[in-house]
């Protein structure tokens, strides 16, 4: 590590100030200037580093400045490198990376909206996280109280890029959609049936989640983490608890880590099987969805049997899990895994037997690997387009180090392959579940939480069923948090949808959208 730092110093001089290993998987690099474009370029070229996320923090009262944090991950390196760059309070501006790294487009604009720090040189600096009709406020600044009452809403003022030409139309859809889904606005420019391009507007469900984390005592904040995205309750809950456990330097008992692994995998297969059914529905194969949703219901009942809640809520806690499992529960778990596995094979055989379904899915909504790389696409969508990433393998947590599993990666990037990634992952998860359910689950399932000291930071990552979930926290006094940054994979992946729909017919939009199945709430927070 020291040679790495020396090399950086030689190349960048006084810009790199110091480096500190907060813990094994987390290295902080402190730089003196907000312009880190050359540094990030160097890290990406020399170490094949990937920029995981970018976020800001208001440290004016403690350190007199704002900070931007750039989380990077090197290929095959289990550590995260977190570059911390100051942004002056009297000159709240930092050079934008978006021109060279389109992946941070929305994240930098989020910093502009929430902290009032200008991303100078951003190719599209318009508001993203606060809608255009909001007053000029920056809610994540420390001097902005959570309960601030803002003047009433005054109608839409967002201007979409016009689409011109003979026979070109714009089709606005949402935020209220035809089905039971979350709200967001899609503006299609179409020439006849094919889509020329799609403009997105999200953040309809923005409800002040990151700010609210600064208000709640830590044990209660676990429930807020479970409400970031309801279909990923356990993954977000676990990511949050892990962050606290890292700050408190707690050892989570093996029994709890195995139980968490089981529940994380149940959440994955539950959502994957639902998505497989929903993709079939969107091309008119409704009977496949009837079976898929029956299988999902099987798992929801199992979830309830194991945790008291169909969405696995109220189970994870700081230090482990809140309840152990008795012999009856373990028998149900093993029986359900076997029953599900055989039913799942039947479901996939049923879908494979329908040629018209395959025809609709193949080469529909293609996201090419080079685009996926530029846009920083993660999770299921990333793996279907050549992004060989999986937090479970690359940064093991819970009990994943104990089980072997394969990470499916394809290069085609169409709806069919996003579905295939899900099918493969369900099969891999069943393998993990079988091994984990055979382990002897004895001993403590939760350890006592020591007093949590203030002003400590930690990063935690979990491979949710959609992809990489990141939580970064700074603790405050009295069992509260100073800052909680949440990165749901949905935020990274929306630009992939924009890319994938181009040239497809508008009637295929629902199935393309479903093949990504991103969380609006996870994006908007």
């Amino acid at each position: 590590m020291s040679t790495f730092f020396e090399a950086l110093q030689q190349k960048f001089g006084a810009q790199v100030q110091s480096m500190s290993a907060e813990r094994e998987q987390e290295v902080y690099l402190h730089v003196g200037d907000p312009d880190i474009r050359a540094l990030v370029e160097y890290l990406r070229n020399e170490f094949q580093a990937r920029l995981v996320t970018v976020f800001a923090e208001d440290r004016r009262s403690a350190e007199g400045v704002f900070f931007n944090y750039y989380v990077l991950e090197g290929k095959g390196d289990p550590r995260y490198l977190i570059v911390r760059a100051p942004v002056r309070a009297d000159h709240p501006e930092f050079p934008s990376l978006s021109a060279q790294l389109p992946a941070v487009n929305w994240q930098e604009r989020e910093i502009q909206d929430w902290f009032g720090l200008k991303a100078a040189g951003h190719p599209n600096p318009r508001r993203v996280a606060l809608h255009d009709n909001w007053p000029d406020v920056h809610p994540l600044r420390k001097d902005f109280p959570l309960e601030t009452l803002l003047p009433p809403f005054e109608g839409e003022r967002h201007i979409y890029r016009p689409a011109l030409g003979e026979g070109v139309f714009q089709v606005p859809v949402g935020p209220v959609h035809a089905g039971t889904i979350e709200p967001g606005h899609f503006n299609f420019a179409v020439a006849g049936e094919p889509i020329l391009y799609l403009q997105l507007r999200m953040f309809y469900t923005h409800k002040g989640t990151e700010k609210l984390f600064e208000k709640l005592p830590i044990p209660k904040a676990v429930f807020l983490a479970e409400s970031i995205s309801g279909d990923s309750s356990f993954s977000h809950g676990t990511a949050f608890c892990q962050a606290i456990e890292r700050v408190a330097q707690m050892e989570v008992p093996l029994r709890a880590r195995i139980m968490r692994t089981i529940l994380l995998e149940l959440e994955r297969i539950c959502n994957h099987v639902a998505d497989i059914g929903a993709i079939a529905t969107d091309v008119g194969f409704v009977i496949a969805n009837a079976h898929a949703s029956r299988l999902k219901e099987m798992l929801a009942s199992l979830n309830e049997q194991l945790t008291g809640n169909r969405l696995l809520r109220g189970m994870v806690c700081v230090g482990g899990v809140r309840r152990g499992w008795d012999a009856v529960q373990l028998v149900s778990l093993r029986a359900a895994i076997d029953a599900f596995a055989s039913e799942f094979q039947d479901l996939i055989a049923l879908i494979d037997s329908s040629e018209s379904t395959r025809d609709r899915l193949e080469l529909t909504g293609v996201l090419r690997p080079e685009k996926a790389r530029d846009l920083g696409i993660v999770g299921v969508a990333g793996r279907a387009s050549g992004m060989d990433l999986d937090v479970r393998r690359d940064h093991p947590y819970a009990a994943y180090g104990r089980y072997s599993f394969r990470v499916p990666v394809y290069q085609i990037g169409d709806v069919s392959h996003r579905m295939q990634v899900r099918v493969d992952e369900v099969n891999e998860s069943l393998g993990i579940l079988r091994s984990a359910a055979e382990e002897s689950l004895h001993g403590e399932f939760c350890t006592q939480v020591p007093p949590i000291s203030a002003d400590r930071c930690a990063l935690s990552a979990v491979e949710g069923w959609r992809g990489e979930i990141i939580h970064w926290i700074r603790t405050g006094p009295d069992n509260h948090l100073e800052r909680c940054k949440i990165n749901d994979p949905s935020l990274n992946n929306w630009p992939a949808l924009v890319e994938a729909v181009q040239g497809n017919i508008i009637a295929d939009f629902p199935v393309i959208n479903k093949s990504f199945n991103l969380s609006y709430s996870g994006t908007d927070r």
Partner: protein
Amino acid sequence: MFKIIQKTIRTGIVTKAYPAELAHISEHFRGRPSNDSREVTVDYGLCVFCGLCAEASSDKAVRITQEFELATKNRRNLVLTAEYTLNADRTHRQLGTVRRGSGSVETDAKIVGQKARETIHKVLGRSLAIREVDAGSCNGCEVEIVALNNPIHDIERFGIQFAASPRHADMLLVTGPVTRNMELALLKTYRAMPEPKVVVAVGACGISGGIFGENYASLGGVDKVLPVDVYIPGCPPRPQALIHGILLAVGRLGEKLYHERGR
């Protein structure tokens, strides 16, 4: 004379700031005799059913049940205040009276509106089209609402369907705290629905704002924006609880007011 002034100055201010500050009272002082009871209030319209209350009360003052049919037409019915008598060590001895209510008082206009809607329920009774709007939820409620269409819960056996357009809908089923960014879309959807229409608020967030409450981005519960006919508690409500609440809203099932064991 000088000594008197000197004495006064040396003594300084002795007046206590009560009631601005608390009165300093000896622990041996005998004040109001207490009947050793304690009141506990639970608001099912805010509850996320995490079960921590039952874990915290080692003497079983609160216990978790398997009951879930909590939907009600009256927000006040969701607030329960229980009075307990206490043992000498302040643990709970016996459950005394249980009261429903408190919280905001219904206005006359709202009660009249509710009566009008009750006649409407007779019209809508058999067949019903629902328009669902997520006004800011975490999508947990959506997961369970979607499950109403699966072969296990199959809400179509009641003649109930989900409609794509508000113009075809009789019922507006709303989840989530109403965010600032969704307020207008929710209002427009409601206005697009033909009369007669009913509104059902789903989940802790839909009822009260839930864990998100009211803040710069969240307006709180659905009834901050629209007149709500039925509230369905849960985080999220399980599919059967949703079915119960939907059937209650159209008068096909009654309210289930669980009675606590009283004195």
